[in-house]
């Protein structure tokens, strides 16, 4: 089976859940002998070489990557870019200007998506594959073009819809691109029933066309061994980790922090991540008079992520709309109890967590304070969480994914 996969850069070049999912899935599929031509938009700035190393090494961690071939396409596209940002980052623009590509200044995101799709189309003409698998909207136009050229089946994988990303106020052009993709695809993979319902209700896609394939997590080795020393001696630590965007609900985290401090004053709140809402969030902590209790760590990568999970007494994911949400699984793998939004896909598959409505500040407060106060609760959720999360593996997801491929190819 030969798959043309239109995906995204792997971690630790942090692309959020999207890159993590692409990595886990391709690795699992490789183990199953599925041959993948993996196409990724790559900014000319060297960010990470881990993926290249991985493939060049051929055999890594006992996994034979000879089935996996990577193709990099010069493009400033980055996951989660939004048209409202108008231009891609300054850094990308400068870098690409210096490349042998067309002058890029002045192009908007949609033009980039178009250019990318044309480049993929050219590339695909020289590749052999049975099926196209594309991840999230920026790659959908490319997927459609290749399908039209090659006559092969197209599977679209939804990690987030425009409704999730914008907190319910979609950009009409992005919505149109998504809808066209869903309609023209042969099958859709949604990362949860939550997302499946979204695709059915907001995009008018028949339920029968959508399969659910949940995300998973890589279980880190020796997590218990390298628990870091406490930063603030005896203070509790409550953690938020994610992009600082409407979708992730960081402002609910800060509002809850204010209330939690009324009950547990010796508590620090860490906000790990960056994003467009950063300035207003900082202002909010000042306005609420808790700026000395809330710490913005900025964007974290690799080991510092595990470290901060390990340091936290509780991880909170107050997402407004979360198609899946891999971070609670990462927290659980690190033995950290979680309080997560019911408006999330991950809440469909994990039991050893406490769920809340993202807007219910009282309930967030109630549950976070309970974990901080009742050590036995914290320990029990932690122990059971570690056991549970070990069962949620990319290898089994890859098997499910392969079955989906077989189903599409049979039709």
């Amino acid at each position: 089976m030969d798959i043309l996969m239109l995906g995204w850069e792997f971690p630790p070049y942090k692309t959020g859940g999207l890159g993590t999912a692409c990595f886990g899935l391709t690795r699992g599929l490789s183990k199953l002998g599925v041959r993948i031509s993996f196409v990724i938009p790559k900014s000319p700035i060297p960010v990470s070489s881990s993926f290249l190393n991985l493939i060049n090494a051929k055999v890594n961690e006992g996994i034979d990557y000879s089935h996996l071939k990577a193709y990099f396409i010069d493009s400033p596209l980055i996951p989660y870019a939004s048209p409202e940002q108008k231009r891609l980052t300054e850094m990308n623009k400068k870098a690409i200007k210096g490349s042998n590509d067309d002058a890029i200044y002045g192009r908007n995101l949609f033009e980039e998506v178009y250019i990318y799709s044309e480049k993929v189309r050219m590339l695909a003409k020289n590749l052999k594959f049975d099926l196209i698998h594309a991840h999230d909207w920026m790659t959908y136009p490319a997927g459609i073009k290749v399908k039209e050229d090659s006559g092969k089946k197209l599977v679209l994988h939804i990690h987030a819809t425009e409704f999730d990303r914008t907190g319910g106020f979609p950009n009409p052009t992005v919505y149109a691109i998504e809808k066209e993709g869903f309609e023209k695809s042969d099958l859709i993979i949604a990362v949860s029933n939550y997302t499946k319902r979204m695709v059915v209700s907001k995009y008018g896609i028949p339920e029968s066309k959508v399969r659910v394939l949940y995300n998973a997590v890589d279980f880190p080795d020796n997590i218990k061994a390298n628990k870091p020393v406490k930063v603030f001696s005896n203070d509790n630590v409550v953690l938020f980790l994610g992009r600082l965007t409407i979708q992730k609900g960081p402002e609910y985290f800060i509002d809850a922090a204010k209330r939690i401090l009324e009950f547990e004053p010796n508590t620090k709140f860490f906000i790990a991540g960056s994003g467009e809402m950063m300035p207003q969030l900082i202002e909010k902590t000042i306005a609420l008079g808790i700026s000395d209790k809330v710490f913005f760590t900025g964007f974290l990568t690799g080991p510092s992520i595990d470290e901060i999970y390990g340091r936290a007494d509780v991880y909170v994911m107050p997402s407004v709309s979360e198609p899946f949400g891999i971070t609670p699984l990462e927290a659980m793998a690190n033995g950290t109890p979680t309080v997560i939004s019911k408006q999330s896909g991950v809440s469909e598959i994990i039991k050893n967590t406490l769920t809340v409505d993202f807007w219910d500040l009282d309930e967030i407060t109630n549950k976070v304070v309970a974990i901080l106060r009742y050590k036995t609760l914290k320990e029990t959720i932690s122990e059971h969480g570690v056991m549970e999360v070990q069962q949620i593996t990319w290898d089994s997801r890859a098997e499910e994914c392969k079955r989906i491929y077989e189903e599409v190819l049979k039709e």
Partner: protein
Amino acid sequence: MVNICFYFQLHQPFRLKRYRIFDIGRTTAYFDEKKNYEIMEKVSKKSYIPTTRMILDLIERYPKFKVAFSFSGVFIEQAKRYFPNTYYLLKKIGSSENVEFLSETYYHSLSFLHSIDEFNEQIEMHRELIRSEFGKDPSCFRNTELIYSDWIADFAAKKGFKGMLAEGAQSILKNRSPNFLYLNKDQNIKVLLKNFQLSDDIAFRFSERGWKEWPLTAEKYSDWIDRLNGNSDIIGLFMDYETFGEHQWRETGIFDFFRHFIELGIKKGYSFLNPTDAISRLKPKGIIDCPFYLSWADTERDLSAWQGNSMQKDALKKIYEIEKMVKDSGNKELIENWRKIQTSDHFYYMCTKYFNDGDVHKYFNPYDTPYEAYIYFMNIFSDIKERIKNEKSSEKNELNVNEESIEISE
């Protein structure tokens, strides 16, 4: 000659409210009145009332038909408060000479694990209740969830009970039959055992379509019982009363099955014995050793449903750490609240055993997760503790006031 002993359990806990961190120090409304009312009403209509009417009718027709009941104190309180029709009907059946009452702890608690004093007091409270409500004095004891062990049997004997009920598990029978009377290890009390095979055929498997014996008819069931004839003294059929109409819905034919089975049994000449009849008429067949705790729950038949994880152990232990302070306070309402949170169900809701097996159907829980059950419990416990502290400081304040007033009068 076939002897059958029916015992039915009636119990409902005072379920706890979703008592949040903000409620601590502000309200002592710990119990979910609405949910407790709704459940008592629902189960009354589906089970308690039709089942009791059926049994009353059977007793009227067949004066030899007898049954034993065990009502927890918290059950009677709730029936009285939330659904008096059930209460009056049970009063009526309770006055029948064919009905025996068993003794248990008033609060259906696990107090035996941490406080013998409290265990003893709750048995006495229950004895008082059965006396005042039904004018009867129980002579056989059954512990919460049929939990049995050597020391509990000895304890019951020393309290004057003549018999105790237990699960007929192989761990104590060691290839012997459950269909005989036994003596406890100290040989001071008779032990009547549950035939769990035949009991669970009715209580659990009756409507299970995947079961090879489905559908179970009264004829078939009574054939099984006949086969034990000649090789058994007493067959203990012990189950929750809610089996009729609630666990097994009316539509499954459970009521017709039971009525028909009794009629068939009467025809065939079965004897229906109460536990007291059984222990006075039958001779013990052997001695039972049980240095561990044996219950009627799950396949494990141990305490793991209530004491399987550290939250459950921690929560239960904490209750008895404050026993002395609670009792010393002399505050009746506080003591009653403290006792109501001892009911075993609160700890069952914290069980993670089935939760992680994904066996959610078996997992009956008014809360979303065992963690929430623990959180609400602990919040309430924290409030009770706060109240004790406040009682103490207000006592001191009163003293201070008195001293001052003395000074003034001087």
